[in-house]
């Protein structure tokens, strides 16, 4: 049955008269660009408008900034990927003893699903950069940083190097040749989960994280 469907559909499509395909002019996409120093403030303004929070810190200090944030917000567990460079930094600089605990996401979800859903307060991921035009960070989940890290915990902390902010989605996709290297999952995230399905009234934290915290590591520019 399915093969017959395939052949039937394709045969009808091939038999139909074809229209000319006009040439596409992408110039409008390339027109949008911002000087380096303007990208981060723009991204921040746009993401704050949809309730994203920012922790501004340095390459030196970000693990402590995260820890202080968790403490002040009363969040006691942070899920993270232990095998990324950032994950290793986080673990090395995390003081033992009392205070927020680091929980490594180091096994298949089948072995830790209940814990993931019920016992984790926050998740930490790196990002591949951001997008100045619309606001938003780019995530490519990986074996080291699983997909659910940025989705299931109620708070998502995302590490962003402000030097890695691109002008547009179009630009980053072209300059990094995504088409030649798409991972199983790639994401743009611009804020905490939200809905306007009831009377068009915005409500945050519907299914995904209730809070998105960008841990912004300021570069030279």
């Amino acid at each position, binding site marked *: 049955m399915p093969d017959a469907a395939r052949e039937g559909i394709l045969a009808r499509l091939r038999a139909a008269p074809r229209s000319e395909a006009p040439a596409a002019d992408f110039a409008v996409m390339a027109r949008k660009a911002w000087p380096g120093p303007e990208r981060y403030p723009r991204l921040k303004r746009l993401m704050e408008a949809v309730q994203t929070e920012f922790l501004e810190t340095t390459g030196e200090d970000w693990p402590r900034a995260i820890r202080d944030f968790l403490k002040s917000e009363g969040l006691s567990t942070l899920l993270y990927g232990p095998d990324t460079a950032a994950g290793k930094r986080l673990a090395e600089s995390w003081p033992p003893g009392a205070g927020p605990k680091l929980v490594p996401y180091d*096994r298949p979800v089948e072995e830790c699903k209940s814990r993931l859903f019920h016992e984790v307060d926050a998740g930490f991921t790196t990002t591949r950069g951001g997008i100045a035009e619309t606001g938003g960070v780019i995530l490519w989940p990986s074996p080291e940083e699983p997909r659910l890290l940025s989705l299931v915990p109620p708070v998502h902390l995302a590490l962003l190097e402000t030097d890695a902010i691109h002008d*547009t989605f179009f630009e980053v996709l072209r300059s990094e040749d*995504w088409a030649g290297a798409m991972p199983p999952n790639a994401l743009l995230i611009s804020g905490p989960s939200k809905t306007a399905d009831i009377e068009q009234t915005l409500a945050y934290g519907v299914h995904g994280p209730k809070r998105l915290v960008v841990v912004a590591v300021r570069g030279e520019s």
Partner: protein
Amino acid sequence: MSAPGAPGAFRTAAAKALKDPELRANFRRAMDGLMTKRAAMFADPAEWRDLRALGATIRQRAIANLPELLERLEEKCTGNGVQVRWAETTEEANAVVLEILRRHGATRVVKGKSMVSEEMHLNDFLEKHGIESLESDLGEYIIQLDGETPSHIIMPAIHKNRQQIARLFGRKIREARYTEDVDELTRIARRVLRRKFFEAEAGISGVNFAVAETGTLCLVENEGNGRMSTHVPPVHIALMGIEKVVERLEDVPPLYSLLTRSATGQAITTYFNMITGPRGPGEKDGPREVHLVILDNGRSRIFSDRELSATLRCIRCGACMNHCPVYTRVGGHAYDAVYPGPIGKILTPQTEGLGRRHDLAHASSLCGACGEVCPVGIPIAELLVRLRREAVRGDRSSAVLGAGEARSRLESLAWAAWAAAHRSPSLYRLMGLAATRLSRLLPARLPVLSRWTSVRETPRPARRTLHELVEREGVDNA
């Protein structure tokens, strides 16, 4: 109420909706808000013009190369470990989904928003086969609780106000206490659905764009339920119509930008989820299986007509309905169709047949607002006129489903008489004379005429024809 989809059903349903002030207020408020937000997003007319031209050409290019792109998509998906199945009809698509679910012994399914699944009436089908299929988009969840269908393709529960939703939750959700607070209502839904995401054995989603170049399935959303449905359960089934394919990955950013700005007036949604494969080697989560079901359901027939194939360009943003004066007044349910509003008026008659649904092609004043805001430049008003013509065609040369089936003897006769009168000078004069001298004697309540005159002023022709007037001025008129 008329039978679903019966000829003339729209007229009856629209008349009923017009008398419902609560419904009209709900739509008016929502559509006004959506129009304002969209307008703010396209404040620069030059950018709008260029971006829309780009969006239109990308979609035209995709449709022009549809069979090749679908084959390429299939090949790429298969290479990425995504299992591709095809379905001619919604029945076949339902059977494919059921077979996959049965193979995994799945009885609890969570769904992200998918208009194709609405075409399939998938939830009802699965329920009949003992599988719970739960909508997880908040709007879809609300209407599923109430046993309704979406009244808008982007905002499915837009016909309800918070009081109605509060009563519904109080009635249907055991743990819910009555509240009209939107944040609290949202929290209630979150609690219920989190459990469902946790338990689900499979997730079902739609597809916004399927990229042939890379085999990537793109999903646009704000809530995170789409990611929950596609990343948490061990099996993910994505459903798409054949027209959803685009050629290249770089085609996606302009379309995505047009979609979110047109639909809800957002520069970007909370999540843009690009799925290119199931759980990869070493990955700790993500579905172990991803299936893609490609559904025709009448689309290839639309494709076969060069003009009407523009219908397939649609990216389902809903801007046409937000700006439609008819939709805003009668709401989405009056159309009794999966796709309401202007896009539905051109799509539904083509997929379900002009015989049954030609009234939808007439459910328009042809004001053209829909075509003006369409981000991919579908000439909706022109296509409506074309479908009106197809519905009453006298020959059999049309490929449109049900062409000619709305032809009525009375109407054909009237037009034949009209044509004859214009061919014969003496008949034409007689008609002019009758119109100017006798029409005043015509009672407005005449059976056929009253359908016009009951809601509009009776047209009053001048006392003298133009011919007579210029003759009086001494112009030789012969």
